[in-house]
């Protein structure tokens, strides 16, 4: 049985207690340095509701709802030294998440916002010829889908949308 009246036992117990407290304190001190840093370089323009993925040392942003004309694909260098538009598409894709298959981006569904297209018309041809491979390579989703239910988005924003069922495949 431990004799708590002996000074040596008390000193050891006190040492263990202080050691544990110090360990806990210093472990807690590791995390405050952990913080989000705002990078000095910004995107060419704000963007919302886009797909994104990193491949081959680059981050790709695909689609999105803003601005007009839409930046469909942005090459963002890993050290943030510069941002540039690789291509600009007039299509408006509110993309679903973009899983990667090797160097292929799989873009299932999404929506096309009508009001900001040239002359209000959608260019279906460019939809598949520029952003995606030939239609034969694109499997259609069983259901049309994107992140926003069509009726509710229209009611909230007054924006007319067309949901896409086509699967886009884009090679990095």
């Amino acid at each position, binding site marked *: 049985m431990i004799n708590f009246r002996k000074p040596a036992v008390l000193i050891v117990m006190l040492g263990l207690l202080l050691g544990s407290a110090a360990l806990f304190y210093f472990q807690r001190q590791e995390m405050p340095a*952990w*913080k*989000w*840093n705002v990078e000095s370089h910004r995107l060419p323009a704000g963007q919302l509701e886009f797909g994104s993925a990193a491949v081959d040392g680059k981050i790709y942003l695909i689609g999105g709802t803003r601005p007009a004309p839409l930046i469909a694909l942005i090459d963002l260098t890993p050290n943030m030294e510069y941002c540039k538009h690789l291509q600009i598409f007039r299509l408006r894709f509110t993309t679903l*998440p973009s899983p990667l298959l090797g160097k292929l981006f799989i873009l299932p569904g999404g929506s096309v916002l009508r009001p900001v297209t040239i002359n209000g018309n959608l260019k279906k041809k460019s939809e598949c010829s520029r952003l995606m491979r030939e239609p034969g390579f694109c499997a259609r989703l069983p259901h049309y889908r994107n992140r926003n239910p069509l009726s509710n988005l229209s009611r909230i924003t007054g924006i007319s949308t067309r949901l896409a069922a086509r699967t886009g495949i884009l090679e990095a």
Partner: protein
Amino acid sequence: MNTVERYDPERNMWEPVAPLVFPGNHLTAFSDGSRIFALGGRVYQNTPHEIVVRNYDAIQIYDPETNQWRLSPIKMPRGKSGHAGVMISNRFIIVYGGEEYATAVGETHIFDTATNSWQNGPTLNIPRHGLGDGIFFNGKVYAIAGSPRYGLGATDTVETLTVDIAALELLFRR
């Protein structure tokens, strides 16, 4: 909707799998190689006068072996949608940003799939939602663009969070 579809690149075909427990949109999903975790999301509930947005705090887990979704007994710290997230080391899910009712949020939470527990992370400098899919790249988590306010909007700012995996393991060992 709560439907889930799986893409087979070999056959270039989509096929339906078991539906989610909860329908919704603006949720995030991650895989640890054997399971899929779907976190948060929202549904719109129509009332005679307005559309009410309801955010989920649920974690739904899919097992491809049994083709079944189940609800995790552990919930998210708060109901959230429009957030981003990354899976790190097939174990830690870092969830950041998003939208709660009528506001964009900047909070970060880390979920350890091994211990089924949450820890708080640092807060984004600029709250944002709709910030694309989470990116974990060269040891950093990226928060790119998104809207700093509820609904539509857009920022051109980029924030990064350096992740020390050993520190994460230590964080959940306490």
